[in-house]
């Protein structure tokens, strides 16, 4: 049964003066579908897989040259630390590597601890990490081969300009940590088994302090960038690599309070995951990346990376140096 209202509506629709009702209604009905299609195709069309991979940040990008060699297994999984990603170094280096060698890198930016766990399980091909003690253990257990020095920078102790623990200008990191503990000033820890976290735990141990469970010692479990933001909000202290601090400091209310202690050296190594662990490991790709990152041209690029925007380089290249020259393991 039809109600009068319905037939009235229907009737009104059909008595259009121009007699063009039907096509217009059809178009109107199809409009949302057309919109959806246009939205998907329009945007997805811009992301064809062959397009160069630009980045939102202002880091330089290199368009892959059509003459790139084609490796048999082009997929390389690089497990690395948050600092190499947060500083933008990876976004700058990987397109160079990919266009030069034809490999396609999947960088997984996690803490050094997790990066090594992925390597141990054979889920990554090559590691770029900065946790020397854990790396030595990793190598001794036979999980990796060809551990090579890549670069270093220094950790810095950052905190609020008001500096409630009065550590400004101190050159001994351990003394600075002792003063922070004595003042019960809030200290934010990464707590994620990253290289920075390992360095921080080592400093507390050398200071003879166990901060775990203290009310002033707070653990974020997050990457360096996020941890610096939280530290800034809480006007607390934390240990950061200089690169990530430089990159994010414009948004932070934090200053460098203690630096220059030689024990605060932050060394990055490249390690190829031992291909004997699993046949699925891309040993050739790992070697290619390892060779690339210590290549003189790459090392020269690292030595200037960050200078144009931040006045100083994020990392100092170290390829070919010995551990003794750096005073590390």
């Amino acid at each position: 049964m039809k109600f009068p209202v319905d037939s009235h509506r229907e009737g009104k629709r059909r008595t259009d003066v121009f007699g063009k009702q039907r096509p217009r209604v059809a178009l109107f009905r199809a409009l949302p579908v057309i919109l959806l299609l246009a939205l998907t195709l329009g945007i997805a069309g811009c992301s064809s897989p062959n397009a160069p991979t630009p980045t939102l940040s202002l880091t330089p990008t290199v368009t892959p040259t059509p003459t790139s060699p084609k490796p048999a297994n082009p997929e390389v999984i690089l497990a690395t630390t948050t600092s190499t990603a947060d500083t933008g170094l990876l976004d700058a280096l990987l397109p160079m590597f990919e266009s030069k060698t034809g490999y396609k890198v999947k960088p997984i930016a996690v803490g050094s601890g997790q990066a090594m766990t992925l390597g141990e399980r054979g889920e990554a091909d090559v590691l770029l990490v900065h946790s020397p003690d854990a790396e030595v253990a990793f190598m001794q257990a036979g999980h990796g081969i060809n551990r090579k020095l890549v670069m270093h920078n220094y950790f810095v102790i950052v905190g609020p300009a008001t500096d409630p623990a009065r550590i400004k200008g101190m050159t001994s990191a351990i003394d600075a940590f002792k003063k922070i503990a004595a003042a019960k000033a809030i200290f934010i820890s990464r707590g994620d088994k990253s290289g920075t976290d390992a360095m921080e735990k080592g400093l507390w141990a050398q200071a003879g302090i166990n901060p775990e469970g203290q009310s002033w010692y707070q653990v974020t479990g997050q990457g360096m960038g996020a941890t610096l933001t939280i530290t800034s909000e809480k006007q607390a202290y934390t240990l950061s690599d200089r690169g990530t601090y430089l990159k994010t400091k414009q948004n932070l209310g934090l200053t460098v309070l203690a630096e220059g202690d030689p024990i605060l050296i932050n060394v990055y190594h490249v390690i190829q995951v031992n291909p004997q662990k699993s046949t699925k490991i891309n040993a050739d790709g790992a070697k290619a990346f390892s060779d690339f990152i210590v290549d003189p041209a790459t090392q020269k690029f690292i030595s200037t990376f960050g200078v144009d925007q931040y006045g100083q380089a994020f990392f100092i290249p170290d390829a070919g140096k010995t551990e003794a020259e750096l005073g590390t393991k």
Partner: protein
Amino acid sequence: MDLIWQGLVRAFQLIIHGDPAMLRIAGLSLAVSISATLISLVLGITAGTAIGLTRFFGRRFLVSLINTGMGTPPVVVGLIVTILLWRSGPLGVLHLLYTPAAIVIAQCVISLPIITGFTMASVQQVDPKLRLQILALGASRMQLLWLLLRETRLPLLAAVMAGFGAVISEVGAAMMVGGNITGQTRVLTTAIVMETGKGDFALAIALGTILMALVYLVNLCLTIIQQRSRAR
């Protein structure tokens, strides 16, 4: 507050200039979420209709599982899918981890219970007498199913919106199975997390604005489809 304003301005600039990186990220977000929703629709409507219209042993238990699935934490889905897709995992041979396909798989797992649950509920709330009447008029089984689905298209479109909304705004699983790789698996939500981590809040807000605008546009289209049928 000025950060939010900066973010809006930045979003506007990115859209006006058609920033290629932004388009790529937004395009991938849409493509991945729409594919996942479509796959879930096919599976979910089939399963939801079957469960809604039949009675069998253990049905209540299955329904309780589906209803629980509607609230599964995406990060748990991400973790399990990651472990399954690892090279050493059972699906490792497919080489899907850290690809957009992996994100689609995780998002399907997230949206499937939502769409199945909605379908089941809406098919069940159709008056049983209507089924009898349709059958009495000599409809075949397929015709019956088709008419029932037509009858429930309003709640079904709500299911599409809920499923799509759940996956495009999801970050935990996309981060774990995709890896947030530049130019490969970076979607809007993971890019927002990354820019927030880097401390570039204005860019994070800009991307957030673009994400919300996209979600709005898609839902607007679906709403027009949904409400149009009611007006008749």
